[in-house]
Each structure stands twice: as C-alpha cells, then as structure tokens.
C-alpha cells in the first residue's frame, strides 16, 4: 500500500472511521460494565475484528484500534496497567488481520486521564514514560499510523507525539485536540487555542494535525480553516455527529450521515486531508461521507 503521507501530498482525501465505543457497547455491554472498554481486547478480539470489518466495508481508508485508553496511566484506573502489553498488541493484531493491507491501521492513543504539574500531580517524565510503554507495543505490533487524539492539554499531546517519534521517526503521527466554541473563539477545556495547538504539535514532530470529537461538523469547518491558517501540515477532522441530545429514548446524536456528508464537502474545500467521524457516527455515516468525498 502506498504511504499515507505520499497520497495526501498528491492531493487525495482519505476517509477515517467512525465511533468505536458505541459499537463495542452494543456488543459487549456486560463485559465492559464497570471496566475500561479496552478490557474487551483481552478476551473478545472477535468483536474488535467485527467492528474493524464494518468500517472497512463502509469504505474507511484508515481503521482505528481500540486502544484509546490503553496507556498504563489510564489503565491503572481499572488496575489493568499490568496488561498494557496484551491489551495494545491484541487490538493492533485484530485490525491488521481484518484490513489485510486494504486500509491503514491507526493506533489510537488518548489522554492519560492525569494532569501535569503544577495544576495536576503528574510529572511530565511519568506521563511520557506511560505513553512510551503503550506506543512501543502499538508500533511493534505493526500499527501504520499513531493517532494521538481527544487531547485538551497541548503539553500532554506534545509528550505523546514526541514519545512516538522517539520510538519510530518514520511512523506517521496524527495529533488531534478537542475544542469547544466559546464567545471568545475556540478553546480546549484546558484553554488551548487552535493556533497554539497547530504550532506546538507541529514543533513536536506531528505529521498531521487537527481536531476530533467536538460540537458538530459545522464548527469543525471553522476549526479546519483556522488550522490551515497556522500550519502547512495536512489537517485531519473527525467530527462528532453533533452534540448529544437527551431524549426520552436515550442519547441521540442529531447529525445524519447525509448532513455530515454534505458538510464534508466544505471540509474538503477547506483543504482537509483526512475526514472521519467520532462520537455518534456510524459505519453508515462513513459510507455516505466516503461516497460524497470520492465523487468530488
């Protein structure tokens, strides 16, 4: 398969996958109950394979692993940190087995759940060491891409990006942060602006930068444009299907596949290189977005 960054350089827009948690919940609710979603990786790799297959079939060029909370610091919340190796290796293997080179295996690396000093209690060395332990396994197991995602503290994101680049300089690293729209512009929960995110992630060695999760795809169009102003790196956008709305029947994400696909055209026009989904998106969202973008 041609290298990801080469394809982007040629102007191709690649399609990411959609939400993972909801698909896992639907298949292993009892198994996850009170535990980390990564607990599945220890016994039910068949579910990981099934979900990867759904997104591959839907036309995703990039399929993510179930390793969002797979850093030992995060796993320690569930006393699973001694299973870091097995949890991360099994997740990469499962996706790799299914996609068989037809899509890139993107290894997800989410926040540690801890906060850095001085506002938190965690030393940067400890956090960095935790990311290294996870990333070592992900890269060794054969991940094609590392995806540092849903970050709100740029210092934490930078530690993860640097750790990945130290282990394997040639493995492309995507780094995405989650922004909220405020009357004063876009900020992460930790107060990071898009300008700061773009510049610091690029300086840390990220190959692709952007945003995931968030408050819906219309905001993402604005976020993408702002990223493009502050960096020449390729931009990735993986949007939620809107903000969850609480209805009698449960939580609903309001944005339909058709709506998101229509808006994805504006992401493409803004120069975004990878378009995927986050919370609330389904294989159907990815299928319709993919068809729309490929027909441009």
């Amino acid at each position, binding site marked *: 398969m041609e290298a990801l960054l080469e394809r982007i350089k040629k102007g191709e827009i690649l399609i990411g996958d959609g939400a993972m948690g909801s698909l896992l*919940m639907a298949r292993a609710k009892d198994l*996850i*109950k*009170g535990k980390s979603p990564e607990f599945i990786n220890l016994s039910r790799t068949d579910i990981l394979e099934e979900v990867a297959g759904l997104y591959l079939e839907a036309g995703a060029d990039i399929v993510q692993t179930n390793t969002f909370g797979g850093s030992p610091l995060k796993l320690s919340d569930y006393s699973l940190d001694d299973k870091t190796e097995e949890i991360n290796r099994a997740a990469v293997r499962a996706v790799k087995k299914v996609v068989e080179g037809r899509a890139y295996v993107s290894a997800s690396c989410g926040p540690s*759940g801890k*906060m850095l000093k*001085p*506002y*938190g209690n965690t030393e940067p060395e400890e956090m960095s060491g935790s990311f290294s332990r996870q990333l070592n396994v992900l890269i060794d197991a054969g991940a094609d891409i590392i995806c540092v995602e849903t970050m*709100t*503290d740029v210092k934490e994101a930078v530690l993860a990006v640097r750790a990945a680049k130290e282990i394997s300089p040639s493995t492309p690293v995507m780094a995405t942060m989650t922004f*909220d729209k*405020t*009357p*004063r512009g876009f*900020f*992460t*929960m*930790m*107060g990071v602006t898009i300008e700061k995110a773009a510049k610091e992630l690029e300086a840390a060695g990220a190959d692709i930068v952007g945003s995931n999760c968030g408050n819906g795809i219309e905001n993402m169009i604005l976020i993408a444009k702002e990223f493009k102003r502050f960096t020449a790196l390729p931009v990735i956008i993986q949007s939620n299907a809107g903000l*969850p709305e*609480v*209805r*009698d029947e*449960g*939580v609903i994400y309001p944005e339909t596949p058709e709506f998101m696909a229509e808006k994805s055209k504006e992401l493409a026009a803004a120069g975004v290189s990878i378009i995927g989904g986050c919370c609330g998106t389904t294989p159907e969202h990815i299928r319709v977005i993919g068809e729309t973008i490929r027909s441009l």
Partner: protein
Amino acid sequence: MSILERIAQELEIGEDEEVAKLTQNALNNGIPAREILDNGLLKGMDVVGIKFKSHEMFLPEVLMAARAMQAGMDLLKPLLASDGGTGRGKVVLGTVEGDLHDIGKNLVGIMLKGAGYEVIDLGSDVPPEKFVETAKRENSSIIGMSALLTTTMPAMKRVIAILKEQELSGKIRTVIGGAPVSQAYADEIGADAYSYDGANAVVCVYKLLG
C-alpha cells in the same frame, strides 16, 4: 482594598503562597476564621466559578485557584473545627447506576481534591446502595452524584430515598450534577444541592458543610 478582598484576588490568580500569607495576616489581625473563609476564600472561588463558566478561565487556572484555596484552608481548618463548624471532610463521588459517563464526575473529583477534600471516587455505574453504604462506612457527610442520561437520573432519587429510609437525611447530604440535571430536578427529588460544574461543586460542598 481590604485584606479579605486581597485574599479573594490572589486565590483567583492561583497564588497559593500569597493566599497563605494573607490568611495568616488576617488571622493575626483578629479576623475570625469563618469570616476569612466566607468573605475571602469562598468569595474568590465564586468568581473563579463564574469566570470558568464564561470561558475567561480554563481548567488549569481553576485548579491553581483550588490549590490556593487549599493553602488558605490549611490554616483555617483547625480553627473552624474548634469554632464548632466543620472543616473539610470526605466526599463520596460517583456516576449513577447504568451510566458510564465519567468526564464531568472526574473533573469534580479533581476540583474537590484540589480544594483539600478527601474524595472517595466510586467510579461509574455505581448502585444506589453502594453510595450510601460507602458514605456510612467512611463517615462521609456528602454524596456527589453525576448522570449524563435522563434514563439514569432517577437513580439519584433512589439514593435520596435510601438516605431517608435510614434516617440519614440531613446527616449525609447530596450534591447532584450532569448535563440533564438542573436545580429544578434537584428540588423535585429533594437533593441538597445542584452543581453546574466542578468549580461550583467546590462552592456547594463548602456551603453544605459550613
């Protein structure tokens, strides 16, 4: 500017050493501990809560403010306790049964710890009985509950009902929060307080224990 106003201001910008120094000065000047708490530290924390809500302050600054609050509280706590009032206590915290959403609950935990409380975090999907049993066992006077789903919110009501059954209402107080939760819902189910975010949760807990 009065010394209490200065305490509030230094707390807001997270200057823990300055807050400790001013708090000690205020005590040396004979200002009662309760007044320093109410008109200095808590006043500062109120402003932090408002600025956090209006996106003028973000989490790191709020956490630094909580740390400054702790620095002041360390000096006031022994005096408040002998004053007949309670100092900081323990908070039992969790996301209610059937609900796995824990980001908001975790933030509340971080903020409370920052403000010097002992937090017993029961995680997510916590059965009602477990909230009450833990609070009893740990001698905690506050239960904090979080829910993101309208379908799981009623679990809060069950915790309050168990407290009533066991004649613990008023001894163990409840603070509730989460996206679908409101003051109106807190009133409806008889919760002792509704908190709209982490900084506000600290203020709520102080007020309940004060």
